[in-house]
């Protein structure tokens, strides 16, 4: 089975993150950039499938030069190689443009399965898997908390707010995963050493047959016009107990889906 895993470098969600004042884009220069957390679960799932069914796992990243660090980190967990889409025209590309570029890159790899995190912690759009499936003509199995493969048949438990749905499809498919699906491994020292020597294929837009006017600030269908800081935390809900306090509490917890 040939698997492509999407890996995105994002600002560390554990530290303070900002948008830039000039173009409203994510401020990557001042941040500690790491692998998007959910992508580690995608890598782990791909490696487990490879261990069970054989095949090849390729990491695919679109990002600036320094995304190389995240690619090496991803490779140290065990994938066989990586493709890095790197082009000066890419900054500013929105979801649609990104999906165009990634779909073109995936097309050159002809995988049976594309696995990605259900969302990235920087923009949290949760749309990339659907867009890619649409562009590639693959099945879209999104928000998985469990994935089983039997031959060319994929079965996914799709996590919802109330529980889960069982969804099946045949390969090729795009599967996006939540952090409930597995426990990602830590790289071993051997993996860290081996990652240095694994092939990373750098591709430009021209290599992928995507023209520069379809990406970047100019080629994007959406524009962020302004941004503001998150408002200060509000005071919350106070329940005064006049005999119905318990019910009110449970109603609140239920409305927030805690119970």
């Amino acid at each position, binding site marked *: 089975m040939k698997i492509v895993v999407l890996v995105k470098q994002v600002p560390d969600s554990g530290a303070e993150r900002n948008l830039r004042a000039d173009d409203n884009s994510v401020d990557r220069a001042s941040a500690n950039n790491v692998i998007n957390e959910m992508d580690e679960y995608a890598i782990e799932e791909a490696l487990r499938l490879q261990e069970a069914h054989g095949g090849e796992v390729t990491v695919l990243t679109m990002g600036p030069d320094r995304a190389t660090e995240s690619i090496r980190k991803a490779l140290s967990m065990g994938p066989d190689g990586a493709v890095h889409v790197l082009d000066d025209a890419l900054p500013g590309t929105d979801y649609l443009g990104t999906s165009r570029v990634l779909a073109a890159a995936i097309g050159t790899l002809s995988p049976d399965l594309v696995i990605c995190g259900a969302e990235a912690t920087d923009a949290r759009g949760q749309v990339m898997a659907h867009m890619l499936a649409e562009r590639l003509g693959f099945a879209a199995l999104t928000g998985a908390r469990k994935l089983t493969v039997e031959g060319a048949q994929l079965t996914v438990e799709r996590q919802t707010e109330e529980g889960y749905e069982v969804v099946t499809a045949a390969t090729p498919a795009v599967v996006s995963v939540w952090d409930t699906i597995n426990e990602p491994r*830590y790289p071993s*020292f051997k993996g*860290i050493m081996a990652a*240095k020597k694994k092939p990373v294929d750098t591709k430009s837009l021209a290599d992928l047959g995507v023209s520069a006017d379809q990406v970047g600030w100019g080629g994007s269908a959406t524009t962020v016009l302004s941004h503001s800081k998150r408002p200060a935390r509000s005071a919350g809900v106070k329940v005064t107990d006049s005999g119905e306090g318990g019910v009110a509490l449970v109603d609140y917890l239920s409305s927030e889906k805690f119970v």
Partner: protein
Amino acid sequence: MTDFGLSEEHRELRDTVRRFAQDKVAPVIGELYEKHEFPYDLVRQMGAMGLFGLPFPATVPGADGDLEIGGMDGDYLALCLVLEELARVDSSLSITLEAAISLGAMPIYKYGTDEQKRRWLPRLLRGEALAGFGLTEPGAGSDAGGTRTTARLSEDGTEWIINGTKSFITNSGTTMTCLVTVTALTGPDEISSIIVPSGTPGFTVAPGYSKVGWCASDTHELTFVDCRVPVDNLLGKRGRGFAQFLHILDEGRIAIAALATGLAQGCVDESLKYATQREAFGHTIGSYQAIQFMIADMETRAHTARLAWRDAAQRLVAGEPFKRQAAIAKLHASTVAVDNARAGTQIHGGYGFMNEFPVSRMWRDSKILEIGEGTSEVQRMIIARDLGLA
């Protein structure tokens, strides 16, 4: 940023283990420590990360071609970095790994026959099994010449018959323990090392000690009563048991220094966290110079301890003499660990005396560092002798 000449891979390993310690060890270790439970699950995860095979090669030359022992092809510097990062959060796991490698696998790797290496090393290096080293006895610690345990050959010459008691033996009583190497008198003034597999009749493991610190690590007294093992279980040369062990101890000192540095740094981490949260007289206590100076001194001590063990480790890796530097690193880092634990506990006030605060665990774990693998006094003897004082 230069970092004592660490390679990118060394830094990557250190950062990976730092993440493991924070995400996996920190949330559970307090409870295991309180219950004196060995952290099997964490040890297994460390095995999967290849930590138990770090300073060993993947293969070693044997008489009939290369033997696959399954090491990670790392070096001693890599191991020490890992020990420091683990001890920054918890010393029990760090000493478990240190002893498993330095005292468990290393003697077999260095002095074992092809058959001994083939039989034991792959499981030890994968972290699936643990080995202990029985040197210390109730009446013989720093002065290993006081060894009373004996091993005599059976009349037909096919077996060693071992009698004696060994004290404070790390990793000797877990369900993963597969063997203990014991030093024993095999003649007048002749000490040899012999491998005793777990479960050998006559070999008894006493219940775990009640220890002040390192409470999630495994330590037992061992007794041998007419315990018979095959004559081939001799490890290394007959009569060289003591010399072999001294060499192993030199390396182990650097490892303990790295562990002590981790504990010292962990005290800084915990104190910084606490000083920026706890308020007194209307301000966080970290805004008072008395606390600031204490933390500045703690950081200074941790930093110099790190410089000392890195220097010794880099000499070792480069194949240069390191005996004096290892003793200096061990002496200094263990002193620093005790000093930082005392200061960190003081900064925490009453909470520093509560077991649920990591800094109190570090305080309890610090004292043994001035005692184990050569007391501070022994380190001073080594340094003085190396300076030509006799």
